[in-house]
């Protein structure tokens, strides 16, 4: 089955869909592993939002591509190099601080992306963006609250969240290396960066966290299907059944 996405808008949208899916899968790993029951439920909620968002976006992509394949085909039949998520969301759940920092850095980014997509010429995308913004607002409040609690909580929590920030900021630079597709479908890609920078800097400062100088790493672009090593493991677990039983319907 040829799962190549050919249309430019669909190529842009699949980056968002994949980012949502992979983060949803990472958060699902937290189910029954949360620090207490209420938080376990909250993380599952956010994971469900992300899967739902990915599914709706894949439907739009499949429509644009003439419905030659389905959202499930895209999720379960593509290989590592055919995935286009940002590398940040592949990063593992080393501890709860990693989960929160990854979510926070992601939430600011997608909040601005979907705000800009309200101006899309594609009415399906606008409809989805309206829905997503309601969800992201909650997720953002949740992750930002935890940044505060962990940053200002104890010495240990501050050290853990600082370590997570130091690691995950390495995966940010590529997000803002916009290509022509980004510039076409985002209303204002420059603003995306400035909104993100302002919020991150202000939050880190308010939470007694440092934003260290990070040398740009040599890393190929997620837009070309490049990843960290984590993606292969994540996909092999996620795709196991449809790959092992290609004729089965689930």
């Amino acid at each position, binding site marked *: 089955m040829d799962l190549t996405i050919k249309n430019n808008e669909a190529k842009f949208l699949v980056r968002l869909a994949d980012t949502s899916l992979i983060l949803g*899968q990472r958060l*699902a*790993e937290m*189910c*029954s*592993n*949360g*620090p*207490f*029951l*209420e*938080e*376990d*439920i909250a993380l*599952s*909620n956010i*994971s*469900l939002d992300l*899967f*739902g968002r*990915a*599914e709706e976006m*894949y439907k739009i992509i499949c429509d644009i591509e003439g419905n030659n394949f389905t*959202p*499930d085909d895209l*999720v*379960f039949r593509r290989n590592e190099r055919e995935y286009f998520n940002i590398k940040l969301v592949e990063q593992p759940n080393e*501890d*709860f601080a990693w989960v929160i920092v990854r979510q926070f850095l992601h939430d600011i980014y997608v909040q601005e992306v979907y705000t800009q997509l309200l101006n899309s010429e594609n009415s399906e995308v606008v409809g989805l963006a309206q829905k997503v913004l309601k969800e992201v607002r909650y997720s953002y409040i949740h992750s930002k609250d935890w940044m*505060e*609690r*962990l940053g*200002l*909580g*104890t010495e*240990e*929590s501050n050290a*853990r969240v600082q370590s997570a920030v130091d690691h995950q900021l390495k995966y940010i630079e590529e997000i803002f290396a916009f290509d022509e597709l980004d510039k076409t479908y985002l209303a204002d890609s420059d603003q995306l960066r400035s909104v993100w920078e302002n919020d991150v800097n202000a939050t880190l400062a308010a939470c007694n966290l440092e934003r260290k100088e990070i040398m740009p790493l040599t890393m190929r672009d997620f837009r070309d299907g490049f990843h960290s090593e984590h993606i292969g493991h994540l996909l092999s*677990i*996620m795709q*196991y*059944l*449809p790959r092992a*039983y290609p*004729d*089965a*319907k*689930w």
Partner: protein
Amino acid sequence: MDKFEKAFNDIIEKDLKVEPRDWMPEKYRKTLIRQVSQHAHSEIIGMQPEGNWLLRAPSLRSKQVLLAKIQDEAGHGLYLYSVAETLGISRQEMNAQLHSGEAKYSSIFNYPTLTWADMGAVGWLVDGSAIVNQVSLQRTSYGPYARGMVRICKEESFHQRQGYEIMVKMAFGTPEQKEMAQDALNRFWEPSLMMFGPHDADSAHSSQSMAWKIKRESNDHLRQRFIDRTVPQAEYLGLTIPDPNIKWNEETGHYDHSPFNWDEFWNVVNGNGPCNQERLDHHKKALSDNTWVREAAAAYAVKTENVVA
């Protein structure tokens, strides 16, 4: 009999509800704490065997449905812990009792989930037996427990349908899928029936619980209702109940069945099931790995309260 005891007996007699501030016999309170905390722990430990397949769910739809279902179970655990808290025990104490083995949870969750069909069998059979029991508990005499059950039952009926939907897809799917479905039924049938607990004659807590209307129907009665309901569902799926003696008895108006393997049941209850150790270790690890998170939240709360003050 003092006036408090008389008031309590009146409530039970008239089928009214006992509320947290009402006087109640110490043994009534203890029995409820034991039962409600066991029920809560079952919801929470029950997240694990299903969580085992969450990351491998084979479609976007099945993944979302399964995650929503497991999340519901966490929510049920939360209601039930809250019910137990109204009886004067804290969540920390309940967790400590779970970890020490003093408090139990439903033994069914000590069985491994080996294939995707087990997600079907767990929903269909395990949630199916749970519903039969819980529907009956909607009339239990302790008010907060009864009200919690009303809400839980609404969600559980979705869970059972979710399980049966997976069974339908598997049983009518490829030969390999059908084989997985039969295998799951073979493994979960008898343990699901034993979920209702020992036979009435052997049930240690039953008679007092029935008198206090904590329990409204006997183990055997509920079990039979579940069997009668489930055998035709297996027939529709074209699957075979793994009991050669299952047959309709015109005289009793129920299905007959073979005796159960109670030795296995007690062995699993007493800690020697296939996954007892793993389930408890998982629960302990999630709590202990995150001690620092709870400490941070508590420290932050103290600091911000001081600021407000």
